[in-house]
């Protein structure tokens, strides 16, 4: 690279296409040799005040005397910028090369260059705006911490490091996205993690050929095992540092993506969808009760509408007598077959749910009234849908929120099972269950069977599956996720 600052400016302006946020400020150093330095930043990415007070003013005030350009650079590197005032910055490095320069300034570093010297100094003076640490809305707990991940990578790393003070905790940097060059950190405990799983993960991230990676969700498809069911996700997401730290101790790997608070955790097992932070803070009996409730809710949300449809359509004799009469009276007044009714009610509910997510808060109240009164009350009174079908669909919908991470697959399965139950009856539901089970049984996450703990069965792991055993029992043996791995690839 050419040593001249003017050439450097020209190269940068060409590379950034004369972008208005590229800032190159020249400084004349106090020296007998008339040395010119430049401060290269991206507007809005650096904390100008701190940079000016600590670095720039320090440079301007320093007397370089008769030093030449190279000597001035060394003084700047080892003396001026490395002084105690400058240690308030997040990073400090000397380097050479235009690509590294671009990498630093786009990451919020301020780069100091001297005319005639190839090497440059990057000072971590990030000052871009970011959201403060707050409680994640998608993972609200009663007794756990109120901290959640934020967008900056370094903030998230610090949240994890604070909780695991062991030097065994490793952060490994990777870059993804040809254009975005998004920074990613692989986080794991060296003594707990399996090298095989780690190598697999690294390989999959290397195979990621995206141009831009703007969120962790972009990477999930690359991290899933190929040729396995995509109905349930084999990749976990969490916005809570305490959850991530707990998973790290079980030999899992966290993937922290710069610019997104959602941290990826692999491998992911089915039983983890029913485990929550509050389970480990509450009393054992209550935590176990909630765990069982979650499993029941999961099955009710998928099977209740389907069983109702199948029994009403094919096997009415299986209804208890008192329900049979009321349901028959209710259904006889409506024009649609029970299958179509169930599908329609479930579909309308999904529309209302999506509308509720996107509607402005001021209008949310009106939508609730429209939904409850117009669609619920009026449609039943007019005899368009039956009250029993509405009740079944509503119960299933409420149950689906008990395990909200599973909402997407539960919704799809609910529709599928209603259709199958309405066309083929109980037999269809049984066959569909067999198909879904086989699909899940063949699913793996980084080679670890997705249904591990249940199938393959592990008696020891059952302490934390359907019930939550006491901490004395749980602390005796920490089950590492790699112990479940059966498949070995050639």
């Amino acid at each position, binding site marked *: 690279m050419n040593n001249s600052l003017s050439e450097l400016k020209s190269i940068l302006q060409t590379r950034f296409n004369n972008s208005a946020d590229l800032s190159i400020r020249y400084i004349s150093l106090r020296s007998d040799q008339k040395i010119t330095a430049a401060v290269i930043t991206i507007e809005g990415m650096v904390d100008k005040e701190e940079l000016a007070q600590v670095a720039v003013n320090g440079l301007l005030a320093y007397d370089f005397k008769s030093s030449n350009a190279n000597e001035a650079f060394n003084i700047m590197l080892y003396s001026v910028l490395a002084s105690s005032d400058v240690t308030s910055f997040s990073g400090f490095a000397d380097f050479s090369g235009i690509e590294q320069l671009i990498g630093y300034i786009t990451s919020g570093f301020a780069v100091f260059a001297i005319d005639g010297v190839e090497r440059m100094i990057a000072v971590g003076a990030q000052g871009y705006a970011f959201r403060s640490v707050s409680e994640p809305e998608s993972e609200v707990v009663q007794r756990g911490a109120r901290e959640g991940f934020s967008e900056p990578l370094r903030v998230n790393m610090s949240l994890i490091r604070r909780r695991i003070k062991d030097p065994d905790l490793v952060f490994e940097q990777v870059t993804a996205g040809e254009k975005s060059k998004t920074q990613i950190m692989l986080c794991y405990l060296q003594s707990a993690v399996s090298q095989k799983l780690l190598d697999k993960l690294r390989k999959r991230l290397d195979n990621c050929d995206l141009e831009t990676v703007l969120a962790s969700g972009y990477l999930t498809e690359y991290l899933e095992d190929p040729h396995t069911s995509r109905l349930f996700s084999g990749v976990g997401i969490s916005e809570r540092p305490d959850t991530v730290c707990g998973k790290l101790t079980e030999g899992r790997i966290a993937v922290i993506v710069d610019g997104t608070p959602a941290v990826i955790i692999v491998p992911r097992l089915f039983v983890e969808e029913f485990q929550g932070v509050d389970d480990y803070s509450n009393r054992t009996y209550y935590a176990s009760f909630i765990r069982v409730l979650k499993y029941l809710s999961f099955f009710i949300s998928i099977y209740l509408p389907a069983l109702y449809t199948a029994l009403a359509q094919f*096997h*009415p004799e299986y209804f208890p007598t008192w329900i049979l009469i009321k349901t028959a009276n209710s259904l006889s007044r409506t024009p649609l077959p029970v299958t179509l009714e169930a599908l329609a009610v479930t579909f309308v509910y999904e529309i209302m749910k999506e509308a509720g997510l996107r509607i402005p808060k001021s209008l949310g109240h009106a939508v609730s009234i429209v939904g409850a009164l117009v669609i619920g009350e009026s449609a039943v009174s007019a005899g368009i849908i039956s009250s029993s079908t509405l009740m079944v669909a509503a119960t299933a919908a409420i149950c689906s929120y008990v395990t909200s991470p599973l909402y997407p697959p539960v919704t799809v399965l609910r529709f599928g099972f209603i259709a199958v139950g309405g066309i083929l009856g109980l037999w269809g539901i049984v066959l569909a269950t067999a198909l879904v089970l086989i699909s899940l049984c063949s699913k793996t996450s980084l080679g670890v069977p997705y249904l591990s703990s249940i199938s393959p069965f592990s008696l020891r792991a059952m302490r934390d599956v359907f019930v939550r055993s006491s901490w004395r029992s749980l602390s005796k043996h920490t089950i590492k996720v790699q112990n479940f791995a059966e498949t070995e690839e050639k």
Partner: protein
Amino acid sequence: MLKKIIIILSVFPLVLGGCKSSHKLETASIIENVSVHKQDGQLVYTFYILTDSDTPSAVAINADSFEEAQSLAAEKFIPDMSLSKLELLLIEKEARSEVMPRDIEYISTQASFSPIARVAVCDNAVIEKMRQVSEAQNTIKNQIVLCKKNNPDVNTDYLSVFNSFSGGRDKTVTVPYIGGNGDFKVTTIEINK
């Protein structure tokens, strides 16, 4: 592409062929009880359809056997009839000798007939009451349960009645007998095989 073709080929006959076997709840006629009595020398089989009204919804059919009555009922009078939820088979004592064991024998070959249905013999007044008031059916069933508690050897359900008729060393079969007009009294009666 191959997977999509297989899925479409699988779904198509599913849609076409699956709907035939449906017995919709709103159109199904679930038979709750059956009674048999003699009227003018002719057997009358009465099928009581499940309903929530106070007056029973009953269809009376003159027939020589249960098989004939069931066939006539399904063809002409009670569309989409189901006997899977049958709870009570009541036989008037005058019709008993003709009905048992012939109809008992026929019913044993029918998979749709519930084997745990209660079987009892009664007098004419009970049959009349059953045809007038829905609540009478529940009262009779409760009385049969009570009878079984007091007499463990009595055969109260169809399965035990059939097995007693078919096998065993005893020459008689003991079943509940319901008498009385409004105030049902349950005793037992022995029937010769």
